[in-house]
């Protein structure tokens, strides 16, 4: 049954709730966007203006100083490549491992699901701490200075496993049953029926993983010492921390644009992930809701 089968355009009246929704969501979006706009506008505003208020809503004195200092950083290209690799491969690995586990937990098979559920849940509560983790990666797995040192430790987020499992549980059992009647095994049912039905949640979880990999700077800080393998976030972290230290030893330089630089760094890091966003969004914002076809 598809949506367009039932076009009973009975009421073309304006639904108060739809109007209210539009107003409220627009209001909230404004509340979200204004500060973002502040960041973007500030990143193009000359430092001498920013130091008066700390932010700006319009670049009254336009300046590209920060962007210039970011993009003259010699390692910036390597950093984009590193980040891209970590994000793409990391998300693929993470999504595979997460989805498998989520399905097993969502099946509620006696003993098996409970066992794996507990196995997944406990790491949310108990953490071994930084030192053992560091020793594990450097002295047992010897992953230092490889991208795997960033990808593998972040490969499964228990939180996202359970989010995915909650979604899987919404899939009507009769769909699965009918597949089994046709003689499909567990694996086949999962791959051919469940996964295609689960595109929305796969898109969401993938998006969350991608964001996490893209934004990660602490794990690379721990394990990546080769500056050509620094991901973007780590490079920019260093840039912020160093803005004054570098200036202190330079002769005749102008004052470092502290405020502007931080804003510009935000823009530079957020940019690429925003480009990827619409691809994921297709799946989780319902294409055509009921409201679109019915009054």
């Amino acid at each position, binding site marked *: *049954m*598809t949506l367009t089968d039932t076009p009973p355009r009975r009421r073309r009246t304006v639904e108060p709730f739809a109007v209210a929704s539009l107003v409220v969501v627009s209001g909230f979006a404004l509340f979200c966007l204004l500060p973002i706009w502040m960041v973007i506008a500030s990143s193009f505003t000359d*430092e*001498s203006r920013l*130091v*008066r208020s700390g932010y700006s809503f319009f670049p009254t004195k336009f300046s590209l100083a920060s962007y210039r200092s970011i993009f003259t*950083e*010699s*390692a910036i290209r390597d950093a984009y490549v590193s980040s891209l*690799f970590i994000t*793409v*491969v990391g998300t*693929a690995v993470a999504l*595979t491992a997460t989805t498998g586990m989520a399905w097993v937990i969502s099946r509620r098979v006696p003993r098996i699901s409970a066992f794996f559920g507990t196995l997944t849940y406990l790491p949310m509560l108990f953490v071994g701490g*930084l*030192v053992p983790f*560091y*020793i594990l990666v450097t*002295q047992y797995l010897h992953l*230092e*200075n*490889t*991208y*795997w040192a960033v*990808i593998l430790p972040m490969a499964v987020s228990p939180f996202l496993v359970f989010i995915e499992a909650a979604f899987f549980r919404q899939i*009507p059992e009769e*769909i699965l049953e009918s597949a089994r009647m046709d003689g499909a095994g567990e694996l086949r049912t999962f*791959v*051919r*029926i469940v*996964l*295609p*039905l689960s595109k929305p949640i796969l898109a969401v979880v993938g998006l969350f993983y991608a964001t996490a990999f893209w934004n990660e700077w602490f794990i690379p*800080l721990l394990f990546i*010492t*080769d*500056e050509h*393998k620094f991901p973007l976030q780590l490079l920019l*972290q*260093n*840039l*912020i*921390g*160093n*803005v*004054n*230290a*570098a*200036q*202190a*030893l*330079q*002769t*005749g*330089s*102008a*004052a*470092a644009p*502290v*405020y502007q630089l931080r804003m510009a760094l935000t823009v530079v890091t957020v940019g690429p992930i925003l480009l990827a966003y619409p691809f994921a969004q297709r799946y989780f914002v319902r294409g055509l809701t009921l409201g679109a076809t019915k009054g």
Partner: protein
Amino acid sequence: MPRPTMPRRAFLRSSAALTALGTASAVFGLDACSSGSGSSADRLVMLLPGDIPVGWDAIRGAVNDRLKADLGFTIDAQFISWTNYSNQELLKFTSGERFDQALEARWLHLDQLLSSGSLRPMDGYFADKAHPHLDATVSAKARASVTYKGHQYAVPQVNYASAITGMVIRQDLAEKYGIGSVETYEDFERYLYAVKQHDRGLIPFGLDNGYVNNTVTPQPTGLFNAHSWEDPSQFFQAAGSNAGIFAMDPRAGTTGSSRPRPFWEAPGVVETLHRIRKYNQDGILNKDVLNADVSSVRGLFGQGRYAATVGNTDGLTTTTFGAVASAVHGAAIAQVVPFAKGTAARPAATFQASNNVVINKNSAHADMVMKLQDWVSVKENHDLVSYGIEGKDWKAHGDSEFETLSKYVFPGFALCWRISLERTPVGMVDSERTWFGWAKDYGHFTTDPFTSFYFDQTPVKTNISQLASAYNQYGKPLFAGTVDVASGLSKLQSAFEHAGLDKVLDQLQTQADAYLAAAKSAR
């Protein structure tokens, strides 16, 4: 519910993509594996703070070529950003990593590393006189300050005998308001109030959340502690916090009894707290001291929003703050040092360096570290590492000055600062030149009796962590002037008492007296 139409093809496509990714990643991964990070017989691994210098690849190449020829090994410098250096180096020490040397200091974890025996003693290397350049460029006084239980554990990296935390002011404004040169505390206060009165757009003094620790307790002066401007004869002990919160008996050097007291019992301190509170209420100080970071404060000074801020006598004042001249027409800066007697003052000094090179206990190449220290004590090597390639990165102005030509900036203070070898940047303002030069002379200081006293906090570490927490919560607001003095101080006192102040004082006294006795018998 619509039935899925083409699941298989979609899945095949996505799994093919996955496989491709997996292959690609395996290739990349293997490639990435090839460079290890451990030290080896011909590679010295060092931890340095900050961002990787612009153009480091080329200069590292030049340094390593020369090193290889001279000493037969190369260096592998691992740069860790400032914000993370402290926790990262501790993590590396704790996990038993085999790097060779690190930047270390009391504001990092020097005390704990000393008391836990994580560093390698260096006495032998100095005793055998095998490092003539190093011996000639690092003074015995500085070396003595990093002696612990009879052994030397660090090579101090200094371009001064003792760095004084002072301030930088806008000399153009001081002239404009007829104050002239700021020398005494009265001058300084007059300057702040004159700015407040005449320049409504300016905040007289910009202070950040880190240097707030330097406002009250003398080391050897507190910035707003007028009493210590007159009498800079004491160094308060920090003992586990970031500020000097313990005052030793001023006569401890002669009596041999340390008798530590909490800072508020020392003369001039409570008066200073009241003064800072007044500054806060009068709008002399920025109101957001506790939330301001040093980068922002310096940035704001550079843009002409603050009329004064903290500036040390480490030779970096002009380069750090001089930029204000390009933002504000006619602006000029001056270094102010908190001694009422000016250059005639003979303040106390522990000669403890703000930065040291230490050798990791787990390093198999201590000898290489010492050879490198000797090597960078030779002028041409020192210049190469510090300033880069001559003609390309920098240009000499005479024997002692230089001008930067590229953006190369090396954290020399973590490897090769030497009083006699450091060049100063061209264009240093006169007041800074005077004071920087003055601070290089060991004869201008009197030796503090606790010059190489390192407190082992292990026996009272629970109390120390509670004290640190109490200081953060109740002490810093007092030092920043954001709370009422009477009630704030009494809250601090009761929090300190609850944290076991007496127990810490006892332990401090025991260790300090033992130190004094040992120092006496050594003499």
